[in-house]
Each structure stands twice: as C-alpha cells, then as structure tokens.
C-alpha cells in the first residue's frame, strides 16, 4: 500500500505548503464550479462562459501591468463582461454574435497587455500564470477571498435555485408565474462570472471553462436527477483537480526535467477522460457482460 502511495505521490507532496493550499483552494473552486456548471449546461451558456473568462484574462493582464493582484482584474472585468453579455441581446442568435465579438476584442486586448507585460516588465512568467493558472503560487489573502466568494455564491444560488430552474426551462413560463426573469438571469450570470474567474485563478483564463462545463457535462450523462447531477459534477470536478495537482507535482521529475508540467493540462485531460467515460457508461456494462460470458464459457 505504501509502495503504491510512493508511486502516486512524489516525495514531499504532503509536506509542501503550496501543494496543500492548492488542494484546498482547488477543491473549493471545483465544488462551486460543479454546482454552477449544471445550470450552465441546462441554460446552454458555455459560450458566454468562454467570453467572460477571456474578458477576465484581459482584466488580469491589465491588473498585472498596473501592479495590482491579478485576481481583482479577473473578477472586476469578468463581472462587467457578464453584465454586458446579459444586456446585449434578447434573442439567442443576436446574443451569440455579440458574445463572439466581445470574445474577439477581449482576446485582442489580452494579447496586447500580455505582450507589454512580457516585454516591458521583464517577467515572462506572467502571461503563463494568467493564461494557464497560478494554483501553486497563490497568496494566503487570495485564498480567503476565494473561499468567502465561493460560500456567498453557493448561498445565492441556493436562494434562486427554483426560479432559476423555471427560467432555464422556459423564460416565458417563468414570467407568467411572476418570476422576475431578467433579474434572475442577471444574478445568475454574475455568479457565473465569479465562478469562472475563480477557475481562471486555478487553471487559467484559457481553460477555466473546462472546469465549469466538463464535470457538469459528464454528470448529466450519469443521472437524470438534478441533485445527483450536482453531486456527481462536484465529485468529478474535485477528483479531476486533485488528480491534476498530484500529476503536476509528480511531473517535476519528468522530461524535459526540472520544471514540471502545467497543472491545468492535467486537470483538463482528467476532465476529458471523465467525460468520455460518462458517455461510454452504457456501453461498458455490456462489454463487461460479454467478456464475463466468454470467461464462463471458457471455464
């Protein structure tokens, strides 16, 4: 057993302060992402998610240039972008087009800021941290803020749960029942922005959408009960994050050597694996059944 643990966890894993913080913070963000992600999947808002995370990335790059904590850049611009996306258009097509344009502009601004950051501040690592996450180098004050924001998000989401579900199924039906559809949608997209930007902190602006949507997309393949879907989504998201952290720590000993591979790469690979397994779920038992049948025949 200890042999196996030794294979899985490279030496010093549990003694490393940064690693422990990363596990805690990654777990919290994965959990809130899992719950929020179910609603994103139901509401088909993955594209909006992506636009928000890229806007947030531009904000973080700007904050870095200004010498401010990049998380505030992520959060402020991400929330503003979310409000913008919400007010852009009523019709799905209109909204998609407008979101696409915002996305393109955001990437342009982000590229410019990161170019400045890399060339004029001399810190080449900054673009990497914004685009691919900074889970191992987060300062303790940010951990507190992210934890508090996650709890607040969970509370508000619980509060609007039923009207939000009704709006997600059919906004007009929700309207006839007296639900303030626009306000609920606006509140949700702001929560979404908060969660997206927390994800950006962990695995970067480019990939935070994966943490939000991947586990949820796998979860809805595994169950058709809302509560169970959320639980699955949380569990898969946390597993992916923790496995990613373990692998990233292990990878310090891998080629080309001495640097370690980015944690966001591992998290995304594990999420993709979970998603594929969830899609194959109904085919796997059949395969096992066939194999077992063959084994019985051979015996």
């Amino acid at each position, binding site marked *: 057993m200890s042999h196996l643990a030794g294979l899985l966890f490279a030496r010093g894993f549990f003694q490393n302060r940064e690693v422990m913080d990363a596990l805690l913070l990654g777990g919290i963000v994965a959990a809130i992402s899992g719950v929020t992600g179910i609603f994103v999947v139901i509401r088909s808002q993955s594209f909006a998610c992506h636009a928000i995370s890229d806007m947030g990335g531009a904000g973080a790059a700007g904050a870095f240039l200004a010498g401010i904590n990049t998380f505030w850049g992520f959060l402020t611009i991400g929330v503003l972008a979310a409000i913008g996306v919400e007010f852009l258009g009523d019709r799905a097509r209109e909204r998609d087009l407008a979101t696409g344009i915002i996305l393109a502009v955001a990437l342009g601004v982000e590229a410019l800021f990161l170019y400045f950051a890399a060339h004029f501040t001399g810190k080449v690592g900054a673009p990497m941290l914004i685009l691919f996450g900074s889970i191992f180098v987060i300062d303790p004050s940010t951990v507190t803020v992210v934890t508090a924001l996650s709890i607040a998000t969970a509370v508000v989401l619980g509060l609007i*749960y039923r009207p939000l579900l009704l709006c997600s199924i059919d906004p007009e039906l929700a309207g006839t*029942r007296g*639900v303030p559809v626009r306000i609920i949608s606006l509140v949700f997209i702001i929560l979404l922005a908060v969660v997206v930007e927390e994800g950006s902190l962990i695995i970067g602006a480019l990939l935070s959408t994966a943490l939000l949507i991947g586990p949820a997309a796998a979860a809805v393949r595994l169950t*058709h009960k809302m509560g169970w879907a959320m639980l699955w989504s949380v569990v898969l998201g946390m597993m992916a994050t923790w496995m990613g952290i373990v692998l990233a720590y292990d990878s310090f000993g891998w080629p080309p050597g001495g640097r370690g591979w980015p944690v966001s790469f591992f998290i995304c690979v594990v999420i993709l694996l979970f998603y594929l397994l969830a899609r194959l779920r109904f085919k796997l038992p059949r395969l096992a059944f066939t194999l077992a049948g063959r084994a019985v025949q051979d015996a």
Partner: protein
Amino acid sequence: MTVPSALTKQNPVLDIRKLSVRLGDNDILKSINVQIQPGEFIGLIGANGAGKSTLLKVILGLVPVTGGSVAVLGKPARRGNRLIGYVPQKIHLDRDIPLRGRDLAALGFDGHRFGIPLPSREKRRRVDEMLVAVDAAGYADAPVGKLSGGEQQRLLIAQALLTVPRLLLLDEPLSNLDIGSAYEVVGLVSRLARDRGMTVILVAHDMNPLLPVVDRVLYLADGNAAIGQVDDIFRNDVLSGLYGYAVEVLRVNGRILVVGGRDSGDCGHLLSAETHCCGGIA
C-alpha cells in the same frame, strides 16, 4: 354543451372591453370585446399572426395594453396572477437535462418560490395525484428530455394545474401532435376542467379537434374578434366580416374548413382546417 343560464349571471372570469394592442407600427388587436363565464371551454381560433398569442400574453399581464381594459376574475390583468394557469406551446429541453417527468410537473407546485426544493409528503402526494390525472404516471420517473412532444405536453398541463388555477390558458397545445393525440389531449383538458370547475381558453389553428368539447369560439382575424357558438361564428358573412374579404366556410363530413377568397385554391389560404387536408400547412 351550452352554458347553464345560472352561471351567466355570475361575474365573468374574463372581461375584456375595447382592448387594443399596438406593437411597433402594427395594430395587433383592434378594440375587441370578450366576456367569458366561469366553467366555459373556449376555443381561440385564428390564422398565424391573428393576435392569438398576444391576447394570451395580455391576459397574463406580459404585454401592456394600448387601450381598453382586461379584467381577470374582477381584477385588472397582472403578471404572476396565480389564478391563471399557463401551458406553453412547446418548451425546448435538451436530451440530457437532469430532470424527470415529475420534476417538470412539480415546478407547478413550488417552482416560483425561492430556496432549494425540499421533499415533502404533501408535495409528493399532490404531484403524484396530478400525474395520474393527466395520464403521465407511466413516465413520471423517465428523463424529461427524452419524452415525446405529447408526453411533455401532458407534464406541462400537470405543471399548470398544480398551481390550482381558475382559468387555464393553453397556447397551441395541439400543433405538435398527430390528430389522434390531439383529440386525446382535448378530451383530457375538457375532463380535468369539468372536474375542477375551471375555465379554459385553448388556442388552436384548427377548430375540428375542439368541436366535441367547446362551449364557444373566439375567432381572431386581422386584429378583430368574434365570439359565439360554433354555428354562429363559422358562417361566410361573419368570417368575411372579420377578415375584411370574402371567406367561405365549408363543411365536409362534419369537419369545418375555412377557405380564403383572394386566391382560392392556393393552399396558403386555407385559413383554418385540419393540417393534413393540405400537405401539412401548420
């Protein structure tokens, strides 16, 4: 079935006086008058763009009136009126949406309230009861995204009835159904309404599936309205007056067809008929 004379003395469930609605540059409804009595089953008929959906939205308080008044059970129409149940035409549910049939119906019980849904014996009992009433018990635990349009329709009806409405509005519930299912849904709604003493307004393109159950017809054309018994409305002079041009009402094997006059023979001008009469106009 006619309205018992004792009922007509009561206050109307719906009292629409000189209602005009203007959206942009278009007069959608032009000074219409409609009174509907408790327990009536009304077929709201008209071609596309006649203002049927707008009228429903006005009753639901979702579209502001330009002129006139709309009173529901004696009070001005307002948004979120719990006395009105609403069944939308169709909702778009993803195949993988993590909801069961019963979850969709249960939103009628407590979907508008804040907070997370907690299970309760009372809720379970009411939802189960309603699922049986709409013949949906068989797929109550199936994923709702994988059910057929007709099955989803019944769940939406259960959803609307769980709000315990006095007036039930159904927006084209038959348009996605085959003729057999359409007759079934109409029969179901009529039975449920009679049991509960509920007033029904059912929007449809085609009058025929409604013929066995309706008390009166509300016919909309070009923003004008006429309300009355089927035989008083489906007449050449009445409908021609509404449309503003010559319209002919044909009766074939007990079915009613309405044919427009300007380019008669053209399918597009078959104004109100069973959809399969004419290569699937809907």
